[in-house]
């Protein structure tokens, strides 16, 4: 079985401002992200042969994208995989190119979360149905349950674990100050984060990402065509996707201190990319920091830190811009914002620029291999995407 490694290249990307974009609808966002990507790739909308459109809250069917961009009768699939939807949209477009059925494909995700009261459609149906006996809440309490158990399992004192969360929050806020398109661009202190109001115990306001409007897009093609378009195209090294089957809530063996979906996706991706020591071989990562606990556990799930030891790396500053493996260099979901199905493509947008050496004040000295990780859903039913990128040289 041939993997995706080195078979698809990114030749253009676009990303809108993320945030509370009260005056824009989802078609405005699609146009803004797509046209930036077209310009970056040096192509016209008519050059797109197939498209994949990711959305969860905003816009059903491929026709939404066709109408926004006036695409003329090309195949467009709508992709929905909760918070992993953006990376999955990209994955589908890559597979389209790799299969040989098209030369140039568009992957685009967009959300108008802020058209929903409180920024999030509370009416989550999956994995249940309309008898509505599940709680109809945003996923924060699901991640908070992991935080509670992580604290209990490793014997953390509440204040001590909150300090680790706060250090992650502070890092992402610092990085966000250097991202012009980020939703939140201001520094915070550890004390501010620790003393912020509780959203869902034990997670506080600054332990939670923003909920945002936004869109991000990628143009993908074959490496052969990419070479003719630009020198600094970026190669796809691995694409992995896993979906939980309810194991966490059906099987008491599940421990609530890791995401089995993420562990499996990372293993698949590392194998496909030929990575054996992720901490050494990956230069930068965009991980799904929907909540501080998610980022902390993800360090362990991705093999950046030994199981149960991620906090030591946080305290050592390993994941800051100056650390040995900078994570969420653009501010992450925490500060860049989180328009669900656009987030994966926004992460790829950052890795794309880091690998091209175009990340401005956030630019890392060494950025040859980058990783993107998205996870979304509820316990037992997480959908996790991991993608790895490299440079052609």
């Amino acid at each position, binding site marked *: 079985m041939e993997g995706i490694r080195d078979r698809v290249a990114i030749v253009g990307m676009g990303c809108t401002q993320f945030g509370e974009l009260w005056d824009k609808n989802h078609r405005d966002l699609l146009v803004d992200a797509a046209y930036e990507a077209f310009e970056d790739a040096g192509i016209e909308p008519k050059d797109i042969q197939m498209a994949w459109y990711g959305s969860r809250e905003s816009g059903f069917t491929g026709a939404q994208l066709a109408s926004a961009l006036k695409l003329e009768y090309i195949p467009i699939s709508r992709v929905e995989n909760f918070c992993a939807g953006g990376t999955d949209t990209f994955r589908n477009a890559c597979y389209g190119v790799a299969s040989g059925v098209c030369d140039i494909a568009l992957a685009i995700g967009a959300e108008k979360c802020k058209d929903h009261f409180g920024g999030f459609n509370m009416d989550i149906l999956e994995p249940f149905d309309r008898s509505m*006996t599940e709680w109809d809440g945003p996923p924060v309490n699901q991640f908070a349950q992991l935080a509670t158990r992580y604290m*209990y399992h490793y014997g953390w004192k509440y204040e001590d674990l909150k300090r680790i969360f706060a250090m992650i929050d502070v890092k992402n806020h610092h990085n966000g100050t250097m991202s012009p398109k980020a939703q939140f661009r201001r520094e915070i202190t550890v004390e501010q984060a620790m003393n912020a109001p509780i959203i869902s115990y034990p997670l506080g306001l600054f332990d939670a990402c923003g909920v945002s409007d936004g869109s991000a897009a990628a143009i993908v093609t074959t490496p052969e065509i990419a070479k003719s378009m630009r020198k600094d195209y970026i190669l796809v090294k691995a694409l992995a996707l896993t979906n939980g089957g309810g194991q966490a809530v059906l099987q008491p063996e599940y421990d609530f201190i890791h995401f089995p979906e993420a562990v499996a996706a990372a293993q698949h991706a590392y194998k496909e990319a030929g990575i054996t020591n992720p901490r050494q071989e990956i230069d930068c990562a965009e991980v799904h920091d929907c909540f501080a606990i998610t980022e902390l556990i993800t360090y362990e799930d991705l093999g950046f830190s030994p199981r149960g030891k991620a906090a030591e790396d946080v305290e050592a500053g390993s994941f800051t811009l100056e650390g040995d493996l900078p994570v969420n260099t653009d501010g992450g979901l925490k500060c860049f914002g989180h328009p669900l199905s656009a987030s994966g493509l926004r992460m790829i947008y950052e890795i794309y620029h880091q690998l091209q050496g175009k990340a401005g004040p956030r630019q890392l000295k060494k950025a040859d291999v980058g990783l993107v990780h998205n996870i979304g859903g509820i316990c037992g039913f997480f959908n996790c995407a991991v993608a790895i990128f490299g440079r052609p040289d």
Partner: protein
Amino acid sequence: MVGITSYGAYVPLFRLSREAIAKGAKGEKAICNFDEDSITMAAAAAIDCLNGIDRNTVDGLYFASTTHPYKEKLGASTIAMAVDLKTDILTADFSHSLRAGTSAFNSALDAVKAGSAKKAMVTAADCRLAFPRSAFEPNFGDGAGALLIGDTDVVVSVEASYSVYNEIMDVWRHETDSFVRTWEDRFTLAHGYLQGVKEAISGLMKKFGYSPADFSKVVLYSPDGRRHVELAKSLGFDDKTQVQDPLFAVMGNTGAAFPLMLLVAALEEAKAGDRILLASYGDGSDAFVFQVTEQIEKIRNRRGMKGHLASKKVVTDYKDYLAWRGILPAEPRKETVVFLSAPAVWRERDANLRLRGVKCKACGTVQFPPQRVCTHCHAKDQFEPYRLSDKKAKVFTFAMDRITSPVLELPIVTTTIDFDGGGRMQCFMTDRDPEQVVCGLPVEMTFRKLQLKDGIQNYFWKSMPIRT
């Protein structure tokens, strides 16, 4: 011999201090939580009553209440599902009168006598609304009582019964009313309560030849915690030694459930051979003479009235009570529940109401909600139903958040619990003190209401710290 073969009761965890209603008022009244109603309380009392009894042997369930959540829709069927009874049984709702509890009891006795049922359950519950700050408000309490009627292993035999009706406007609610109305109490007590109950008791004693000295305990419905004494004295009973305490100091008048609950309280103190007189009230009165048998010692392991009354949390903020009852409107949350699907509610009834999971016949793994393919061994359609509602569990992990609906209870405690004997479930926790929630906390399951949308009320189970 036909009689009571088991009893049970339910008093909500919460008590409203009467001081919160009116300065200087004494005692407290039982109030149901925001997620309770007469159906959930009646289910809890029925489950208490069936402790140690095979639920498949129950072949009748009568639900009595003046505060039925529906005007048109059977409540007994919802309760029978929550109690996990079989479906080929008698079910009926008794309503509209404070006497509904004893009316249902009479009918259950008749059903067993006639042979239509072998074991018929009566479960009565009420949570009546009084006008805020009215004289009724401090008096009304919430609760439920349940009696199982059968003809073997009789705990309390029924020696005699006698009923009168009394057409009078003394307490009422029109279809358009939310709150109980009344007339001047000098009239309603004289010609309603006192006259009605007196007629029933004296009629019964005369017809069957009893005298006051024949009874070890007289259990009387009491409208206000005082008038039953006047009534007992006028009938020749010794109010110091013979009259059952109507529990106004700790519970209040629980409406249609009241006579059943007071009878349970009396039975908890009774010994074999005791003769007990019970009289209900509501547009007339039903009076009964009971005799306690030696079997009573076999059913002491119920939480009953004593256990439930001893386990409590006092609410001191009157506004909490008003909000829970919907008298103070809560801020509506946007887009919480768009609609409840009647087919989905029906299809999921065994899981949601009976709280039945499944146990894999191939590998033994207990799973909730029910699955088609086993999560562990992947065997397809190899399951047997597995009741979880009666299992204890422990909190594996939890969150306490301020943004998940419902907004009537902040923070909302969401739990992942592991059942003793297998099975894991995610559910809300209710009747909890946020300070006491920890990983490993022992919990039990309690049947509660969840969402109300388009007149459809769905019910489900929540975890709660074990009531001790």
